[in-house]
């Protein structure tokens, strides 16, 4: 898959056009020949279209700090679709995974909630669980009342993404 990085607010997609006998990369719509050379000291050395560059890199999270020659830059590495097996995405309806009762309701209709914020506490099989907002949203409807019992798959809360 292509590598996507953002520099100074501009996004660039880097792809591979050729691997042998020499590596050719496509950056945006220009094609460049790249050769990697050995370098000591934790540095890297690459030859791009005939010009040699020495530099260092350090990545922290999605921030990539790169020094090329005598200039330092910061890029953001994008991961468009982070992770396989996409997050449940059951959408905006939060349903009960097993039968139980409502212990506590911690939100109200119309409230704006952030991802991870607790919405309700339910109890099932002698265990209490917190139902949290999977994403930033506005609470549309709370379908259950305190102390109410519900069946498996029962609709608990409807959210509207923010």
């Amino acid at each position: 898959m292509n590598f996507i990085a953002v520099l100074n607010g501009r996004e660039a997609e880097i792809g591979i056009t050729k691997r042998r006998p020499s590596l050719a990369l496509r950056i945006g719509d220009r094609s460049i020949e790249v050769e990697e050379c050995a370098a000591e000291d934790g540095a890297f050395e690459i030859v791009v279209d005939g010009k040699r560059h020495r530099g260092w890199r350090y990545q922290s999270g999605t921030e990539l700090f790169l020094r090329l020659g005598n200039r330092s830059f910061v890029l953001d590495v994008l991961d468009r679709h982070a992770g396989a097996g996409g997050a449940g995405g059951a959408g905006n309806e939060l349903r009960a995974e097993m039968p139980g009762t409502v212990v506590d309701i911690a939100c109200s209709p119309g409230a704006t909630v952030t991802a991870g914020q607790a919405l309700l506490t339910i109890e099932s099989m002698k265990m209490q669980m917190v139902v949290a907002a999977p994403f930033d949203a506005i609470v549309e409807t709370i379908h259950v009342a305190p102390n109410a019992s519900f069946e498996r798959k029962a609709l608990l809360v409807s959210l509207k993404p923010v």
Partner: protein
Amino acid sequence: MSRLKSAIRPEGDEFRRRYAHNKARIAEFRSLQEAARLIRPQRDLDRMAAQGKMRPRERLEKLLDPGTPFLEFSTLAANRAYGGESPGASCITGIGIVSGQEVVIHADDALVKGGAWYPLTVKKIVRALDIAIENRLPVVHLCDSAGGQLQLQSEVFPDKYMAGRMFRNQSILSKLGVKQLALVFGQCTAGGAYIPALSDYNVIVRGTGAVFLAGPPLVKAATGEIVSADDLGGCDLHTGTSGVCDYPAETEEHAIVIGREIVAQWERPKKFLMPQDAPEAPFYDPDELYGIIPDDIKKAFDIREVIARLVDGSRFHEYQPAYGTTLVCGYANLWGYRVGILGNNGVLFNESALKGAHFIELCNQNNTPLVFLQNITGYMVGRDYEAAGICKDGAKMIMAQSCSPVPKLTVMCHASFGAGNYGMCGRAFDGRFLFSWPNHQIGVMGGEQAANTLAEVKLRQMARDGAVDPAIADEVKRKTLEAFNDQLSAYYSTSELWDDGMLDPVDTRNALGIALSAAASAPLGVPGYGVFRM
């Protein structure tokens, strides 16, 4: 290994004439291929776009690793069938690289009648899965088909190698430990539902993907139940409730990203054949093939000139160079792999057949894959040859070839008439891959020969009956010629899937390289031969 010496004269008339002819022929071939790949009714293009779906080839390009080759099979399948309604037989198959893995790809082309399966579609898919089984290659299915063409159901459904064979092949692949991934982009209805169900992993796109044994119209007809496609067999139902599908994807792009991640986890296959050397481009320019291949099916050419433009460094180690000279046998490297090449230089004589059988045995003894370059019009005929036992000599070659445990690749370079096809590993002989050139012709005999033969037979018949009319014989000749010309053509052969695709001769080297790498993933067959009639 020494380099072959080329004897062509590029500045000569014959070369130039052939070059012009073949360049035109290839241009025609390429434009037909392009049309079969890309020209689709605007209405269908619009419909797919409106549904938020990507075109099949867009999905393919996103799936494949950038900067890697894709060897497409049978682009021109069904080009002579169904009134041209089914370009490519409504699907795309081939070998490509996904996340660094060699995989067989099968993609439904929903731009052709919703991707509905014609008889030749099924045949093409079954063939792709056979290739996967024989070469132990994992498979990625890009599913988006309306199911079998109802009107042609008798040719799609009931027989041994029809639709059911796809699912049988999927099961056998799984049994062999070869993985399959299905990406459900559209509706998988009825039999089609089994493709994702029988795949080890599958991904389904929310909204447009659906899997059901019976779609909404059938359900309504059967029980009166009215239900939408999404409710009946959509993403959330199958990933959340039924477990028929593994991964929900928000978009087609997302599905492809998930698919690539899945494939990235798969173990690399063990290779049973390894390249012996670093590859080396042929010394002679493959472009010269256009000046070597004749413009007439009856004309000959030296097969060594073809070999010189296929193999590494144009180096060739010829076996028994002085004996059975109408069959050229020898070793070469192709993309680094050591191969044993058999190429026709004329009709097969007793000696050539014996030499061929012996050489095949040598290759099997040395675990060397076989490459057959066919240009054969038949065996030598006549009493002397029959008396010398040409039947049993030909049989020995067939026996050796059929029982070969090594992978076999065949390229139809020119003629493939009659029994010569058999010894040289025609379709029936389970070669791993078989490709043909646009100038290729295949038939029990050449068109003119058949026309002459039948005209001769008619004349004899008329003579027996008493009224000889040369005009009638001529008519027989003309009609026969016409029919044969149609059915002898490489386009007809590829339409019927008698090959795995037509190739521009200059593409043959790359195609064989990819084929050899694919073939190397399966263990060699069980050694041993039947009885050689001595």
